[in-house]
């Protein structure tokens, strides 16, 4: 069980301007990450998972309306750093990311070997030779044949490209790797291979992973902890074992009930209605309109309740 804290995120907000109004993509997220942690952030499409990842790594688009909160890493506030300092000291030094659609994240005019060694050249000031040497080791580790280093991205299969993207995220050995839907475009067998690889790497390098996905079944492979995201907020954080056997939040329960199981004859459920638009959300529990346990208190913002080490944001668990 992870103990000490690698990162503490407090009231993180990322709002975008749009023609229709302000999009509250990430709206007051609190989350703690531990050393050698593997947390899965689960949620439907459009609930702000990717925006959350971008907010941590400060990869912001131009139309940012608000970007506030605290991100403490090993006790240092990352939000206070200038953009240039953040680029130099944080990105790929302290944390890296395997971007969504990692298959397209490779430069088509660079050989993948050069591509993987790029972060080392940029950050460690390594020469091309030493960087290529490290890249070669990383290729072996992620299971890409070393002679692929001289190939271009389009000459690799999807699974291989994904492994290259992972190699690129690992090459500087950061403490935290954010994996944004790393397997979304791959077949099930390749997905399983990649997750096995990630598990092994996490042990070898003693890293923390934040895995962002909507695929509950495969993410359970890697997850040590689970955070459920709904409408820009985190509604439940729990250790994986207890979460998968008994989720607390009504939304989590519905979500779990929608996943087919190998054993048992349970009928699949669905959640009625749609997730709320992230533009102009008012007071109250955001899941309330779709919740079957709804009662009067749900019109006010629910508190975060600690229940035997599990955090849940729901009035049902409030005492009194």
């Amino acid at each position: 069980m992870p103990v000490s804290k690698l990162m503490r995120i407090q009231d993180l907000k990322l709002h975008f301007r749009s023609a229709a109004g302000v999009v509250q993509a990430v709206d007051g997220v609190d989350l703690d990450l531990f050393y050698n942690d593997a947390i899965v952030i689960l949620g439907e499409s459009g609930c702000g998972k990717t925006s959350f990842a971008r907010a941590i790594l400060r990869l912001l688009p131009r139309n940012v309306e608000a970007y506030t909160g605290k991100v403490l890493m090993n006790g240092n506030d990352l939000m206070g750093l200038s953009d240039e300092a953040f680029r130099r000291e944080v990105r790929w030094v302290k944390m890296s990311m395997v971007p969504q659609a990692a298959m397209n994240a490779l430069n088509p005019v660079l050989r993948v070997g050069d591509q993987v060694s790029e972060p080392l050249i940029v950050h460690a000031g390594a020469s091309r030779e030493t960087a290529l040497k490290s890249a070669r080791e990383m290729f072996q580790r992620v299971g890409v044949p070393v002679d692929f280093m001289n190939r271009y991205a389009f000459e690799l299969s999807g699974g291989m490209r994904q492994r290259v993207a992972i190699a690129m995220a690992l090459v500087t050995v950061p403490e935290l790797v954010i994996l944004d839907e790393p397997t979304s475009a791959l077949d099930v067998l390749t997905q399983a291979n990649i997750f096995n690889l990630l598990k092994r790497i996490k042990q070898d390098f003693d890293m923390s992973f934040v895995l962002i996905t909507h695929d509950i079944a495969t993410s359970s492979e890697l997850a040590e902890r689970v955070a459920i995201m709904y409408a820009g907020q985190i509604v439940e954080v729990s250790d994986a074992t207890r979460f998968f056997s008994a989720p607390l939040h009504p939304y989590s329960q519905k979500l779990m009930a929608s996943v087919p199981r190998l054993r048992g004859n349970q009928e699949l459920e669905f959640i009625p209605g749609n997730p709320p638009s992230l533009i102009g959300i008012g007071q109250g529990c955001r899941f309330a309109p779709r919740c079957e346990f709804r009662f009067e208190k749900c019109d006010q913002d629910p508190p975060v309740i600690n229940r035997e080490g599990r955090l849940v944001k729901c009035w049902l668990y409030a005492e009194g």
Partner: protein
Amino acid sequence: MNTLKKYFREILQYPSAVVGSVMILLLVAVSVYALVTIPYEKALQLWRGGEDVWYANPQYAPPAWMNFFSDKDLPVSFKLHSRDAGENQSVTKEVVLGEQNTSRTFITYTFDFNYDEFPQEMALLFNTTYEVKQPFVSILWATPDGREIRVGDFGVSKKMTYRISQDTKLQRRLGGLPPIQGLFADPNAQTPVPFKGTYQLLINGVSFEQDSHIEAEFVFYGQVYGLAGTDHLRRDLMVALLYGAPIALAFGLLAALGTSVLTMIIAATGAYYGGWVDELIQRITEVNLVLPFLAILIMVGTFYDRSIWTILGVTILLSIFTGAIKSYRAIFMQVKESAYIEAARAYGASSGRVIFRYLIPRMIPLLIPGLVSAVPAFVFLEASLAVLGLGDPSLPTWGKIINDAWLNAALYKGYYYWILEPAILLMITGLGFAMVGYSLDRVFNPRLRGL
């Protein structure tokens, strides 16, 4: 390396590319030859040399190979020097010592004349040494049919040029015919027609001092000259035709390279940073697009400096902010949003790194055909400026030849070679680069192939 080889093989499949490459290679070979055989200083010296350098050439003479295309054989220029007697069979020189320090010098020039037209001119260039008393020469002309004509008798100063066509006494002696015609004319013909055969010019000189010597060069000015002909200043056009190649190529390539590379970098910078940087670049472009390009160049040439490097710099400067910046920007805007650009930003690549390693390499396939096609445009620009009289005054360029020809009414007077030679070289340059450029375009932009 393999990709290069692949592209190369693909390019070779287009006949136009092969023909174009051969043309370009030819021009490059000519340039190298010119630069090796005529060093820069020498070229300038030759081109601006005037009479001292070019005294032995006929004026306005078409190239010698014109004889292949006409039924009339035009006389070819040559010169014979008495110094070369002994080495050259056509010249003999004999010195006979006489009494009281006198000596007699006999110089004979023998040459075949088998042409259908009279030569332009003949001249004797004397070079004598003496202290006080000038040597005296009498000149005789021996025709193939055995007649001997007295050309003239006169004292010779140290350096003296005797032009036969200007000898009015000789004209009278020849019955009023211009001397050149008179000397070569067939005595039995009604109208002056050259009589073919071996002619001789004999100099019979007397010197009156011990160290007094007579040397003379016989210059026969034909109607045709060399491979390229001559201009109004008797200059061999070959010098300018040869030397124009490296100048044209250097100007074209530097201008095309400078313009397209700078345009690309600036467009990429603007597109990547966006905001006021992009705004500024776009506004500069829009202003520059309405500025009269040629008029500014003419102004710079007239008021500031006509050196080819100044003109090159101004050309590049004015050509950076053109429509190309807009079209490059449009593509960069699209590339900029690619996942891999964001990935690069994520792993902490600096803006410069993203621009030069991620954005610009994507555009190289578009850059290369454009660059190749832009070369002739700049070669033509340089020629056009020269034709307008704004060419570099010291350099022998193709445009300068056309300018000279135009000022001397070459076409009006029928000296077509004078304009056609540089024009054909310009056309070859344009054609070669255009053919290669269009083929490259097809190789690098496969979508065009269906068109």
